C-alpha cells in the first residue's frame, strides 16, 4: 500500500461482487430500476437501447454438456479512479461541458442530467458500456408516476445517465449523521439498492479505504479481480471468483498469457498509482 490512506476522511466507495454467490436472479436490477426511477419501454428486445444502470451478463465456459458451467456477472458503473488514480476516469475527462464529475470525497462518478447536452462522448469513452442514453422521453405506465422515488430526479430525452452508487442514499445518510452530531456514517447506513436487494448477499458495498468495512478485506482477497484491468481505468467494482475460466472472461489476454500472471487486483491498482 503506497498512498492508500488507512481510514482517512476521503472515502473510496466501492463494491465487491461475489460471482460464486450470484445466481443471476436479477433482483439487483429490479432494485436499481425502482430506486433510481430508471424508465423502460414496452419493447425491450434491443438491450443496447435499454436503460439499465446495472445489467447482469451470463457467461459460460464454452464446454458442452455435462461440463458446462455458467456464471452471472452483474455490471454496474465501475466508478473508475482513472489511470493515475486522480479521478480522470475515461468518461470524466472527455465530457466537454463538465456534465460528469469525479467526487473527490467519495470517489463516485456523477452525472449532471441538466448539464448534459447529449454528445455521447462519455459513452464512446467508457469501455464497460456503463453509460446509457435516453433515446426516448420516459413514459411511465398508469399510476406508476406516483411510485417514483422522490429522491432521484427523472431524466429527459437526449441525456446520458449511469449508476451513481445510489449517491442520494449517501447524501441522506450524511444529513442524518450531521443532524445527530456525527462526523462519520456507519457502513450499513449507506448501501446502494442493488446490494440491499441481493438475496444471496453477493454484493458487498463500503469504503475501500476503511479497514473496518467488509469490502476492505474482500477487495484484497486472492479471488478478487476487476474487469479490464489492463486498461488501467482502476475500477472500484471488484469481483470474486474461485473459477479460473471466469477470471479469464474478465480481461483480454495474448496467446500464452494467463490471469495467473497478473498481480492481485489491489496490488495492480497500487502499482499504477
Amino acid at each position, binding site marked *: 500500500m503506497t498512498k492508500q490512506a488507512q481510514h482517512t476522511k476521503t472515502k473510496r466507495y466501492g463494491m465487491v461482487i461475489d460471482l460464486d454467490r450470484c445466481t443471476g436472479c436479477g433482483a439487483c436490477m429490479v432494485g436499481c430500476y425502482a430506486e433510481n426511477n430508471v424508465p423502460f419501454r414496452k419493447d425491450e428486445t*434491443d438491450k*443496447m*437501447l*435499454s436503460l439499465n444502470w446495472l445489467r447482469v*451478463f451470463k*457467461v459460460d465456459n464454452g464446454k458442452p454438456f455435462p461440463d458446462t458451467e455458467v456464471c452471472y*456477472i452483474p455490471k454496474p458503473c465501475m466508478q473508475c479512479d482513472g*489511470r493515475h488514480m486522480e479521478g*480522470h476516469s*475515461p468518461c470524466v*475527462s*472527455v*465530457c*466537454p*461541458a*463538465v*456534465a460528469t464529475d469525479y467526487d473527490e470525497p467519495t470517489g463516485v462518478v456523477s452525472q449532471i442530467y441538466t*448539464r*448534459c*447536452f*447529449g*454528445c*455521447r*462522448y*462519455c*459513452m*464512446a*469513452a*467508457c*469501455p*464497460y*458500456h456503463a*453509460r*446509457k*442514453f*435516453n*433515446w*426516448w*422521453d420516459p413514459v411511465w405506465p398508469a399510476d406508476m408516476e406516483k411510485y417514483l422515488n422522490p429522491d432521484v430526479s427523472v431524466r*429527459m*430525452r*437526449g*441525456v*446520458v445517465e449511469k449508476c451513481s452508487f445510489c449517491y442520494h442514499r449517501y447524501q441522506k445518510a450524511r444529513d442524518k449523521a450531521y443532524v445527530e452530531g456525527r462526523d462519520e456514517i456507519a457502513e450499513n447506513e449507506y448501501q446502494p439498492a442493488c446490494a440491499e436487494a441481493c438475496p444471496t448477499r453477493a454484493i458487498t458495498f463500503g469504503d475501500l479505504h476503511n479497514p473496518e468495512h467488509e469490502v476492505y478485506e474482500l477487495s484484497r482477497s486472492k479471488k478478487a479481480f476487476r*474487469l*479490464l484491468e*489492463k*486498461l*488501467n*481505468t482502476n475500477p472500484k467494482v471488484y469481483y470474486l471468483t474461485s473459477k479460473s475460466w471466469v477470471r*479469464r*472472461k*474478465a*480481461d*483480454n*489476454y*495474448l*496467446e500464452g*498469457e494467463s490471469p495467473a500472471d497478473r498481480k492481485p487486483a489491489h496490488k495492480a491498482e497500487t502499482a499504477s498509482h
Partner: protein
Amino acid sequence: MTTPAIPEGVKRCSTRKFAIWLAVVGAVLLWGVYAMFLVWYKGLNQTGMNDAYGFALWIWADLAVIALGGGAFFSGFLTYIIGKKELKNIINYAVIIGFICYSSALLILALDIGQPLRGWFIFWHANVHSMLTEVAFCLSVYFGVLTIEFIPVVLENPKLDRVPFLHHLSHNLHEVMAVFAATGVFLSFFHQGSLGGVAGVLYGRPFSFREGLLIWPWTFFLFTWSAAAVGPCFTVMVTWLTEKVTGKKLVKQEVFQLLGKISGWMLLTYMIAKIADTWYWAVVTAPSKGFALMDFYTNNPVYGIWILIAELVVCGLVPAFILISRKGRENNTLLLTAMILAVIGICINRWVMVLQVMAAPLLPFQEWYMYMPTWQEVATTILPVAYGIILISLAHRYLPVFPQEKELNPGN
C-alpha cells in the same frame, strides 16, 4: 446568357436550365431537411445508433468533411503565407468548398446532440481538458474566418461591387487576408488535431488509443497532417467535377499539378508517420492492453485486414507515389485517380477511427457491435452534399470564382 448579376465576359446557362438544376438538387435538399426536422422533433431515436454506437455515421461525416475542407486552410497557407502565387487561381474555390464543409459539419453537430437547445453549454461550461471542447471552439471560430474569407468573393458579384462601401470592404478584406489566413491556419491546426485527439485519448478503447506528446496523442498530429495533405486533393477533385458539369476548363492544369505535387509529398510523409504509428500501436500499445493486431480485424462481418491495407497501401502509398512523380502528375487520369484514392483513404481513416472503435468488443464475453444507419441519418448526411451543390452552383453562376476562366474560354 449574361445578366447584370453575372460576371462580365463569362458564359452561363439559361435561367430556365439553372432553375431546373436547382429544383432537382433542391428536392434532395428538402428530403434532408425533412429528416433533419424529424430528428430535432422526435430525438435521436430516429437514428440507428444505440448505447454501443454513441458515435456513428454523423461523427464520421463530420470528421470526413472537416478533413476534406482542410483544402481551404492549407491552400490559404500556401497562397498567403508561403506565397505560391499560382494558387490564387484556385484559392477562392478552396475557400468556398471549405465554407461548405465547415458549415455542414456544424449543422451535423447540431443534429448529433441529444439536447440541441443546450448546444451552447459546450462553450459556456467548457471543460478545457476535453478534445471535443477544443474541436467546438476552433471549428466555430475557424468557420467565422472562412466566412470572412468568403465575403470578398461574394462582394465581387458585379451588382454588389457597384455599391461603393461593399467595393471598398472587399478590397480592404483582400488587403489583410494574410492575417485571417494565418489565424485560420492556427485554428485549423488545433481543431483538425483535436478531432484526431477525440479518438486518440480514449484510453479505455485500445483500438483508438495512442501514446503521444504532452497532452496530445499521436492521432492529433496525424489528423492535422493528413487533412493538409488530402484537403487540396478534394479541392482539385471538386474543381474537376465542376469543369465536367459546366463543360469548360476553369483552372489551368499546372495549378492542379502544383497542388498534386505538394499533396503528394505531404501524403508520403503522412503515410510514413501513419505506418510507424500503426506499427507501434500493433506491437506495443494494443498488446499491453491484451490485444493482438488481428483481434481487431477478425470475428466480424465487415472489418477485415483489408480495411487497413486499403487505407495504408491502396489509398495511401499508391496515390502518394503517383503524386510525387512528374510522370504521374502530368498524366491527367493518373493525377485525378491518385487524388480520388487519397480522398477515399482519408474517409476510410476517419471511418475506422469512429465506427470501428465503437464496433470492436472489449470484454471477452461480448461480440462485435454492428450498426446500420437509418434513412434519416443517411438523408441528413446527404443534405450537406445537396446544400454544397446549390451553393457551388450559385457561386459559379454569380461570382468571379475562377480568375482563369475568361482566359481558358476565349470563345465566350
